[in-house]
């Protein structure tokens, strides 16, 4: 500031008086949420049956697994990284849980723990590749994605896993998906209506709150944001940058495996062809989240809203008889609009404000 006086009153004379919130500011902050409410109202009026508890739960259920994966990838985006392996981790968890129960004939607990451990291990390896061997994040996790997609097919020679299948050595798999495991995908809690809320939705909400709290309220979360904003400065402030980065990839891996477990529990078999769209849907939700409340950076609340936004749009359009094959187009359009919100509009804001 060019003020000669040493009094704080200089602030009021300075040229940097905060600009009054103008139309663009409001559009950046609330534009996306307004759009969301607009959609809700539009579908409530024009799609009969949209405005009901069952429809709402259906929307949540349709985005639950994507949303959980997206919350994981949000953690890696926060530290300035990216995790392309989440989709492969989820399908690997799907195959692993089926393998553990059907072929090794173990119980649900063993299957769940095996999947979580696998997710954590993949995250650890990803993190290690990135911070120790200095492989760029996109390339390291792309390599891991390929590796996992291939690996999950080797034990069964590329076939899906189901009770009664013939194994490569000629014997028959006698294990079954335990009822406790299947309950993760099929049980519904009573809430307002009987058997309304599925387990996956509860998982989404709980995990969403946990990730949000971790990133926004704890010092660990703030340090992760600091790393994403200026890694060198965070390191020079004494932060153990490498450890936080590895933790971020481990969170991402574990959450992706949770998504895989829920998917396996819903399907009830180790289906080799499932989960093709998971990676792109999850990444899209996290990126749409940048636009929510004008954050212009990865954030858990935005990610959850991003996932819901896509779910609402698809549910509404489906109820208005828009054909299923337009879905990816719709998602892409939403993503592009959100990215314009984030990068074009907020860039203009910071220019006029600075």
């Amino acid at each position, binding site marked *: 500031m*060019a003020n*000669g006086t040493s009094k704080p009153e200089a602030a009021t004379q300075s040229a940097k008086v905060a600009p009054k919130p103008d139309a663009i500011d409001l559009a950046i902050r609330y534009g996306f949420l307004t759009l969301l409410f607009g959609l809700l109202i539009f579908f409530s009026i024009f799609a009969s049956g949209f405005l009901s508890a069952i429809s709402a739960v259906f929307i949540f259920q349709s985005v639950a697994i994507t949303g959980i994966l997206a919350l994981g990838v949000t953690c890696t985006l926060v530290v300035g990284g990216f995790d392309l392996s989440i989709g492969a981790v989820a399908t690997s968890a799907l195959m692993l849980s089926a393998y553990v129960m059907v072929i090794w004939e173990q119980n649900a607990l063993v299957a769940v723990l095996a999947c979580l451990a696998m997710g954590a291990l993949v995250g650890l390896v990803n993190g290690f590749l990135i911070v120790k061997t200095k492989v760029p994040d996109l390339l390291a996790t792309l390599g891991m994605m390929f590796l996992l997609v291939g690996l999950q097919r080797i034990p069964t020679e590329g076939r899906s896993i189901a009770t009664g299948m013939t194994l490569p050595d000629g014997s028959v798999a006698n294990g079954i998906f335990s009822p406790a495991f299947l309950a993760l995908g099929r049980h519904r809690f009573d809430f307002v209506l009987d058997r309304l809320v599925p387990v996956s939705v509860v998982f989404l909400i709980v995990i969403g709150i946990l990730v949000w709290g971790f990133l926004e309220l704890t010092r660990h979360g*703030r340090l992760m944001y600091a790393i994403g904003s200026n890694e060198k400065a965070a390191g020079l402030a004494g932060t153990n940058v490498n450890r936080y980065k590895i933790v971020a990839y481990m969170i991402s891996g574990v959450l992706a495996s949770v998504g895989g477990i829920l998917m396996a529990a819903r399907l009830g078999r180790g289906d080799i062809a499932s989960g093709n769209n998971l990676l792109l849907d999850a990444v899209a939700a996290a990126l749409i989240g940048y636009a929510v409340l004008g954050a212009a950076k990865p954030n858990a609340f935005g990610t959850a809203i991003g996932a819901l936004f896509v779910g609402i749009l698809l549910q509404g359009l489906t109820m208005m008889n828009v054909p299923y094959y337009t879905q990816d187009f719709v998602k892409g359009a939403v993503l592009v609009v959100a990215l314009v919100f984030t990068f074009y509009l907020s860039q203009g804001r910071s220019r006029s404000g600075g």
Partner: protein
Amino acid sequence: MQSAAAVITGIRKSFGQNTVLRGVDMTVPNGMVTVLMGANGAGKSTLVKILSGVHAADSGEVTLLGKPYVAVSPANAMRSGVVTVHQSINDGVIPDLDVASNLMLDRLAEPGGGFFLNRRKIQREAREVAAAIGLEVDVKASISDLSLADRQLVAIARAMAHQPRLLILDEPTSSLSAAEADRLFRLIDRFRDDGVGILYISHRMSDIRRIADRIITMRDGQISGTFETDPLDYEAAVQAMLGHRMTEVDIQVPDAGAAVLALNQIRLNEFATPMSMDFHDGEVVAVTGLVGSGKTQLAEILFGISTPHAGEMHLNGQRFKPGSPGDAISSGVFLCPKDRASNAVIGDFDIAGNTALPFFTNYSTLSFLSRSKMHMMANTMIDGLGIVCQSDRDSIGTLSGGNQQKVMVARWLSENCRVLVLDEPFQGVDIKARRDIGRKIRETAEGRATVVMVAELDEALEIADRIVVMSAHTMVGDHRNENIDIGPVLSQVAGKITSHHAGMS
């Protein structure tokens, strides 16, 4: 011949609600160096950007050698004879290309040039350009292999290749050593003798004393003074720039307390002479020396970023061997690094978050951060350092350079420590911010040893009880800052052989 290279009348410029220039009138005469002074945020850079075609003025006129001049783009300005050397080095060079391509870049970008490159012709012309300013680099070398100072000289040489009529230099010496800066000054002298109008923007009094024929000061987007007497009245110029008098800072050198940090036969690299030095409780020591003299390496070994080639350090009498910045911080050794934009500022955080960053543990319960504790601390720091802001929730990016630097210093003053190292804490800040920071460092010096790395001797004299000179990666001088004789200090800075360290240069 026209008497004025450029006449500027009534230039106004706003960015949104932020009015930066409020009607600037000034003249840049031919054959003279006009120094433009102004605190950070006074509008100097905006004025330069209007003249060099980066921004368009909202109103006002510029005439160049008597003809109306409106630059629509930087290339257009350059072709009209307005040549600008920008402060940021990386704006001036392309690291992946070789020196010759960089020097000839504007030629390559000109419309109507041939489609194919004539490599040999380019290299020959580049050699001529380089020779003209005494730049001794291989024109085939890649820019990324050059030192920072050489890159800066390449950027300057590139601008000089254009036969300028109005030459604008925006803090060109900020990363040059004294010898390199001197080479630049001789070059500016030559352009002045050729009758070119030169507008020179700088914070450095030593540069200004060397080069200025006239001084124009800016304050709050307006011209606040023009100084043309012989000799120039520098004090009055500083006063016009700041709105209050530059006072000599009075240093009361206290008696040194107990030794807090001891360096014992430390060698910064395998070629360096070992150095030993004690830093005492309550003492502020300025370590001065040219760019590349080893100041930053010393800061790095103190903070656990790198390890010394040989020797050991003792902190409070205990062996001190930090393995990481986190280690150093928990031992009570803090470093406020140089170059805040890349090493210190967290752009996504507000003032409070930036200040509390290294000590989040102290502001959290069971890992949950307490905003109110952070805000209390941040507000104490804002008052103590006179940080100009709306509140501690302001994003760091909305602050001016000087205020950002205050926040970075506040970060390391917010907790007590045994040793505080500040590497170039006055980099790119105006004199007022510099005084505020210096005063606060001295006020709080009790209970720790303070080490301030500064290249500018003025800054060392302003803040230190003791001035240590570094040259060729070792310490070559140690002076008490009381009735100090500048002569020997300067010759030590310049790397002259002293009796104490005879035999090394």
